[in-house]
């Protein structure tokens, strides 16, 4: 059945790895955890299960950060993953939930339109009118279900919802209980319940995290990949994973071309060339790792369906321009400056220079 799904949840894709880890896991587990904290760390960072099954790395980066995140969840403190766009916040959150609770599906997408009823609970009004307030008339939200079953709840983009709605969480986080005054009962959280929230620390203009709430989270800041090698590794790995999952027609390996995307993105993002010799204009696009991945995947699709089955400069060009040029005037200037001062003279990049110029 799930074969038809566009994107399968983490716990399904990696079910074999999770199973192997659980089998050999004899270390103490917190109540309602499917794995021990150490096994969760292995699941995220890669390694070997006890029975020798290789575990792929889901997150490439600092081990200490992931350990801090897991240790936070093991205490009853909520975890807030902060970071620039495209630093794998949701990705880490999904895999943490998959490994710890066995499901990454308890999820609330926070938006400016999210109201308290979507966080706490709503009412089945037909039932409410017919029979009056009763537990049966309560419509449970993912939060309530997570509390009752002692699982993790994921809150995506926490700061996109209004701060008064955010404050609904305060009592839940500090006292692990959700009062329902209409029925004079309270929903108490089972052991194992916890919240992983993600938020973007770049976007201004959305709501700030209320300070009362901030104090109730342990914050882990996920950094942009430190080195070119690290970032290239992430991009190559993810492009292949996504492409295969989308059943894109197979193409020739294109590690080299993907590496070029990363170089180009990093240079424009940092405002200087890798060797630090030339200063560049930056673009208004974030040019994050996540965007590099999507450029890679699109280029793959283009090459497979319309090209010669090989990611080349032509397949890349249009996608790169799309990612870099968000503001037609300012970013256009940044890109053409980059083209003329850097790409034109760089050895072996003339094909990309020509292709991008054609698109522009």
């Amino acid at each position: 059945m799930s074969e038809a799904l566009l994107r399968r949840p983490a716990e399904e894709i990696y079910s074999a790895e999770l199973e192997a880890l659980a089998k050999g896991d004899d270390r103490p587990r917190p109540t309602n955890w499917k794995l021990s904290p150490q096994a969760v760390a292995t699941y995220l960072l890669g390694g070997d299960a006890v029975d020798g099954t290789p575990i792929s790395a889901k997150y490439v980066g600092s081990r200490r950060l992931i350990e801090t995140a897991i240790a936070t969840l093991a205490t009853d403190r909520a975890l807030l993953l902060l970071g620039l766009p495209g630093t794998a916040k949701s990705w880490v959150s999904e895999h943490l939930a998959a490994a710890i609770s066995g499901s990454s599906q308890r999820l609330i997408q926070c938006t400016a339109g999210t109201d308290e009823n979507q966080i706490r609970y709503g009412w089945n009004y037909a039932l409410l009118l017919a029979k009056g307030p009763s537990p049966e008339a309560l419509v449970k939200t993912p939060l309530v279900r997570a509390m009752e079953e002692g699982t993790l709840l994921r809150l995506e983009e926490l700061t996109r919802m209004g701060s008064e709605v955010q404050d609904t969480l305060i009592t839940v986080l500090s006292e692990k209980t959700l009062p329902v005054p209409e029925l004079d009962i309270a929903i108490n959280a089972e052991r194992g319940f916890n919240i992983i929230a993600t938020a973007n620390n770049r976007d201004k203009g959305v709501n700030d995290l209320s300070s009362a709430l901030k104090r109730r989270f342990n914050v882990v800041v996920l950094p942009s990949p430190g080195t070119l090698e690290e970032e290239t590794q992430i991009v190559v790995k993810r492009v292949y994973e996504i492409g295969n999952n989308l059943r894109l027609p197979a193409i020739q390996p294109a590690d080299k071309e993907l590496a070029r995307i990363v170089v180009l993105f990093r240079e424009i993002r940092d405002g200087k060339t890798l060797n630090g010799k030339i200063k560049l204009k930056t673009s208004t696009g974030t040019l994050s790792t996540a965007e590099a991945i999507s450029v890679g995947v699109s280029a793959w699709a283009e090459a497979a369906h319309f090209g010669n089955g090989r990611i080349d400069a032509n397949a890349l060009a249009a996608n790169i321009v799309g990612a870099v040029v968000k503001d037609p005037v300012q970013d256009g200037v940044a890109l053409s400056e980059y083209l003329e001062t850097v790409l034109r003279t760089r050895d072996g990049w003339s094909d990309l220079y020509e292709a991008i110029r054609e698109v522009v």
Partner: protein
Amino acid sequence: MKRQAHLFGIRHHGPGSAALLKGALDALDPACVLIEGPPEGDALIQYAALPGMKPPLAMLFYAAEEAANAAFAPFAEFSPEWVAMQWALARGRPVRFIDWPAAVSLALAKAGREEDVAADAEAEADESGNEAGHAARLDPLDVLAGAAGYSDGETFWNGLIEQYGGGQSPLDIFAAIETAMMELRKYPGGYDDRSAAERLREERREAFMRIHIRDALKQYDGEVAVVVGAWHIGGLSTATTVAEDRAIIKDLPKIKVEATWAPWSDGRLSRASGYGAGVVSPGWYRHLWDLYSGDRHDGPEAFAAGWQARTAALLRQEGFDASTASAIEAARLALALASLRGIGMPGLAEMRDASLSSLCHGDDIQLAMIERKLYIDSRIGKIDKAVPQMPLAKDFELWCRKTRLKPDEQPSEIKLDLRSEAGLLKSTLLHRLNLIRVNWGRLIDAEAGRGTYREIWSVSWSPDMSVRLAEALVWGLTIEQAAASATVERAHKTDGIAQLAELVRYALVADLPQAASTCINLLQATAVHNNDITDVMNAVAPLVRIVRYGTARKLPELELRALITALSAEANAGVRVGSRQLDDEATLQRLNAMRAYDESLGLFGDSGLLEEWRRQLALMVDDAQSLAPLIGFSLRRLHDLGLWDELQVSAAFSRHVLGETPSRAGAFIEAFVAGSADVLIQDQTLLFLIDEWLCGLDEEAFVESLPLFRRALAGLDSVGRKRVLERIAGGRKERRPVRSVSEENPAFERALPLLKQILGISA
């Protein structure tokens, strides 16, 4: 069977090994304790038990003949060596140092320096960086910890301490360390990157230690405990004969060495032990030590909470919002992290991660702001009054009594009258102390430039300064001696002429004539070899000031005048050729230097030099290769001084503007008219020289030079520009000759001879 000494391999300044050592000593109850350290310090050990002795402290060993040759051995309260001393002193057991004598190590250091002057600085740093620093670089226990999967040596020790708490005898643990060390020593290629010289040094030291151990075994019936850096264990357990050991240490040079206690500070402790490489953190170590040495055995909870509470308090001091609740969460997170990483007690890494996540909301800038205070701490050691003072401290006290100044931490301001002996004495002391970096007083208002006799100082003492005083011992045994050699040392290290001139001035105000002479000689020597005329010119100005206005102190005036003459001659000779081909920045510096030099030379009053300087100015104007701004300045001076008449100046002006490239002409004009609008308004000749020249241009030349003028006058403010314009519009005012005044006013004429006499104008 032959009796063996018990070898306790420790980690220098490691609280973990200190705690373990304490347990081991209690268990073994030795009759005698031997510690790695120079035997010259034996007499000092007894003072360690005095109640007024507050670590961090250092034992200082210095050559009696030459204090600059010195070595420090610092101790914190968590240093195993200090713990061993305290243990033995409390029980009245004999305790001794068994390393090679400082007499030998300092003699070798001296010989090494004389042998290889080039590597001077390095060798010195190496030698005065105490034994612990040396060992820290190749601490084998850190290697062992790394092999066992711990992030740092102290976390590893944590594990060992826990084992000890879990029933294992500390003696067994030390025995295990011994075995591990023997094993490690078998593979010298592994991490041992010491040079042959270092190896020889180790061999000699270990030979001394073995001899001491044998003596102790002969002398005492009971057990003998030996506390040494773990690395030495291998060398000490090697079976050798007395004759072999004697052979190794035969014919080593020796010098006379003095030893003394000196206060030390946390900052220096971490530096001396190579902070940064091994990250030795007194703050963290002290916290560990509190845990180990406390009477009740605190659990990991209290341990983590204590540290996070301290972190939170420091954060609050910096104005961040760090609540107690967050500190509690940070402590819980640290414990959870420790258990996730499979260690029983959170280490520094776990504590840091937890603070970052819970207390700082993931913002590492907050943590960075308190890191220094948190990790290094700021404790400063104190020495008991009963301990004989080190010579500099004694001298300092003498001076304090003589000058009636008292070290007080409350900042206060004192005004000194340098004409009185008391005032001069105080000023001299404060200046000298500044030279040895004991910045007790800060000169707020010297007024020295005007040659007045007053100085205003802001004085405030801080405990840190007693440490600096101790460090200054490397320069000398009295304050005068130390200040003089510190100055001379700095003079030798610098090759900047301006800095040397500054040092001459410092030496003079600190009443160090010998040092001043040395600096003057160095300055002369440097000036001869120096190609940068800018430096030479800059050096002249402060020196002329000293000679012209005096400093209320005795001056080696002859020497100074000779120096100024020599420097000026140098500048005069080199200025023309040196004024070609400079980049923009250097040109600007040169221009400023020439201004200052020109002014100073006028004050100095040597007519020969002045004449030569003016001749050079004229030559520069005519030298086609000189840089435009310098020509502009020279021409202006020639005009100001009336050396060239209007026609000459005008011709030169025209020559340097017309037909030149715009940038060159612009720079020339800019330098020529430099100064405020008032100069242009008042100096009629100058203004109309330019005006007439401008009016005489044909149209093409006029259009060409217009932008240059615009640029040259851009430096004037709008009001100034307006006034210049008005002045030009007003036309040339015919000034009446001065003598016309006398014709009209007979009273003035009568007064004139006397006026001339007063003003010194020859009639």
